[in-house]
């Protein structure tokens, strides 16, 4: 906290600035609000063509080492990109895939990396399957891997698996020989009725319950560095959701400001009322804090196992971004008055995103609990 360490607050390279600019215009172009709404009715929640263009732009390879076909700019560089996606509610399997590939990079064998990372860079879709019940804070899992000859059989289901319906592979947490491991499961090995699509409050997203029971894997499918990888992908997951939420918070703020500067009530632009003006300033301030924290986390995160500074930064970012967006979404409905109560008003999209994201990879209270252990003891 003192000036002695504050020097590494932010690093922002020209390369990153370029990515950010390109992300901003791409997301704005491809994801106007009409497009977002029309994709709600679609099966997979995203436009395949847009996804192909993102792959084309190299975004799926940003965090992947050059030797595996990526551009090796680091996971931190995806933060600005994901923030832009959040800002335009551009939902694709990008976050899920990035996290799945991080799991392989951080926990996988050379063989895993060689096989999967180039595919990801070229557009294959992966996702994490970690959650057993409503509790992101649980440290155990009810999924098991049991021996059957030289095979292993998975037993159990995972909840809220993002973009499961389009995933080519899954990273699944399960118990094996008394430890929790991550195991790679190809979509092709799932049974036909393994997926059941969930009805999400955030209609721009997709997730399934995935039943892995009976899926056969081999010991080679277990990531050798599962323990570190599991810990790190949860933290990185928190950061990426924080980045996306911060983008959505900015969109929420824009929408509120635009209404407050155009709507007249009792003969005055409603933004002139301090009862609306000052809470809108609070949204700005909360968003600014979230943004400082996500960019700082993006700076201190690395390809190595995350150190304590990175853990603190990721947890702070999620704790702040989650609460900022929920506050903004709630106020956005309220400040739009009757309009805010309609499905046609974009405020509901933001509020639903807030509600859908608040617990993903742990809610604010969860992260503060762990921060307390890191900062107070």
């Amino acid at each position, binding site marked *: 906290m003192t000036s002695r360490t504050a020097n590494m607050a932010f690093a922002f390279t020209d390369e990153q600035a370029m990515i950010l600019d390109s992300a901003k215009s791409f997301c704005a172009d491809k994801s106007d609000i009409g497009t977002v709404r029309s994709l709600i009715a679609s099966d997979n929640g995203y436009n395949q063509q847009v996804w192909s263009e993102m792959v084309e732009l190299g975004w799926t390879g940003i965090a992947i080492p050059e030797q595996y076909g990526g551009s090796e700019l680091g996971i931190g560089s995806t933060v600005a990109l994901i923030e832009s996606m959040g800002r335009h509610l551009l939902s694709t399997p990008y976050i899920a895939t990035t996290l799945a590939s991080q799991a392989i990079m951080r926990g996988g064998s050379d063989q895993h990396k060689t096989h999967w990372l180039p595919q990801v860079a070229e557009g294959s879709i992966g996702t994490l399957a970690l959650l057993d019940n409503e509790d*992101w804070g649980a440290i155990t899992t009810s999924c098991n891997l049991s021996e059957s000859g030289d095979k292993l059989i998975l037993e159990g289901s995972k909840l809220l698996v993002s973009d499961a319906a389009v995933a080519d592979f899954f990273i699944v947490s399960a118990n094996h020989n008394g430890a929790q491991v991550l195991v790679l499961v190809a979509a092709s090995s799932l049974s036909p009725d393994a997926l059941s699509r969930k009805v999400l409050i955030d209609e721009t997203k997709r997730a399934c319950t995935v039943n892995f029971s009976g899926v056969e894997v081999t010991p080679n499918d277990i990531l050798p560095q599962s323990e570190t990888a599991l810990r790190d992908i949860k933290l990185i997951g928190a950061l990426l959701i924080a980045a996306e939420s911060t983008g959505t918070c900015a969109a929420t703020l824009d929408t509120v400001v635009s209404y407050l500067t155009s709507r007249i009530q*009792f003969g005055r632009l409603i933004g002139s009322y301090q009862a609306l003006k000052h809470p809108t300033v609070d949204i700005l301030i909360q968003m600014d804090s979230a943004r400082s924290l996500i960019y700082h986390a993006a700076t201190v995160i690395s390809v190595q196992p995350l150190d304590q500074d990175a853990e603190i930064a990721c947890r702070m970012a999620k704790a702040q971004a989650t609460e900022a967006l929920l506050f903004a979404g*709630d106020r956005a409905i309220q400040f739009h008055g*009757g309009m805010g*109560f309609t499905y046609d008003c974009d405020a509901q999209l933001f509020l639903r995103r807030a509600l859908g994201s608040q*617990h993903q990879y742990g*809610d604010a209270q969860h992260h503060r609990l762990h921060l307390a252990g890191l900062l107070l003891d």
Partner: protein
Amino acid sequence: MATDKDLQEFRAEVADWIKHNQPADPGFLLPQTFMEVGSEQVLDFLREWQHKVWSAGYLGMAWPEKYGGRGLSPSYQNIADEEMKLARVPICFNVIGLGWAGPLILDKGTDYEREKYLKGILSAEDIWCQGFSEPNHGSDLGSIQTRAERDGDHYLVNGSKIWTTMGNYAKYMILLARTDSQAERKYNGLSFFLAPMHVDGISTQPIKKLTGEYGFTETFFTDARIPADCIMGEEGQGWRIAMQTLQYERGAEAGAAGGISILSIVMNDLLKMAAEIEREGQPLLKDPLTRDNLVKFLIEEKALHLAEKRIQTPALCADYPNSLSLSGKLRSTEFYRRMRQYALNLQGAQSALYVGDKDAVDGGFWQRAYMNNFSTTIGGGTSQVQANIVGEHVLGLPKD
């Protein structure tokens, strides 16, 4: 006067009736408030239920017998309402009739009007809706643009109304329209109508709510011909009558007609929900932060309940005699907004699920409840307007 013993016996009677008459789960989603009646199926179900409650004698208990009531003390209706709330029976959904139009007609209407309208309100034969708000004018009723021009024995009505609950199902509307656009004070040009909805020139357009449900309409008037005798009071008295009507709102809930049972979630429901949930590998109810938050809400809920009682002891309200009544809407609607939002947080990852998902906690009840709650912090004067009212009319602070 009903004795305590009478009332106690009556309470047992109602509870017993409910036990034997509570309808089975219809297999489709029932509304949480009268503002989510979005299909004929739901409408028919609720109409049948309200009719049943009324037939059993548990609705309109304090209304005169000749208009379909029972002429009893309001205490009876209060008790019936309480028991129905506790048992979570479906709502008596004809709320604008029961809570606004009915009390108004009883209080200020002519005998003809009472005869014509009241029984249909109770029996649910005649659904009522309300036409005050207009597009682009939100809370500011003074700006009403819908015109009603006298044309022989009719008024020709032109304009549009918004947030008409059950506009597409209603037979009558309490309508506020401008009969004199030259009036010196804009409030003086308004008149109040008990207007039929099933006439040419009135059309409705359902509005989809943020929850994805329906229940409101926008209502369009194009040379709609409303009989002149549908005016209530006289031309130019509309504003005064409308203000009068808004006063019944609280009364309605407190049992003037009874059984309206708008969405009532109390802390006990939340505690029940929380009992099954885990957090950090432990039961949620063991989490110290959750406990502290829940107790904060319990204290606030207790204070809300106590306020209702304290109003009845003026000596305890001497400082600001109108404080508790004028701040009531602000206090309770904002309490519920925060409490329902918090309920979602308590659900953990499952809070991301929604109505229609089989794993959603209580079928997505809380998700709907939180989002629908905005109708109470926005409608009938936003919380921000309410705070102004309290500041100005209770504390005497200057207007903006």
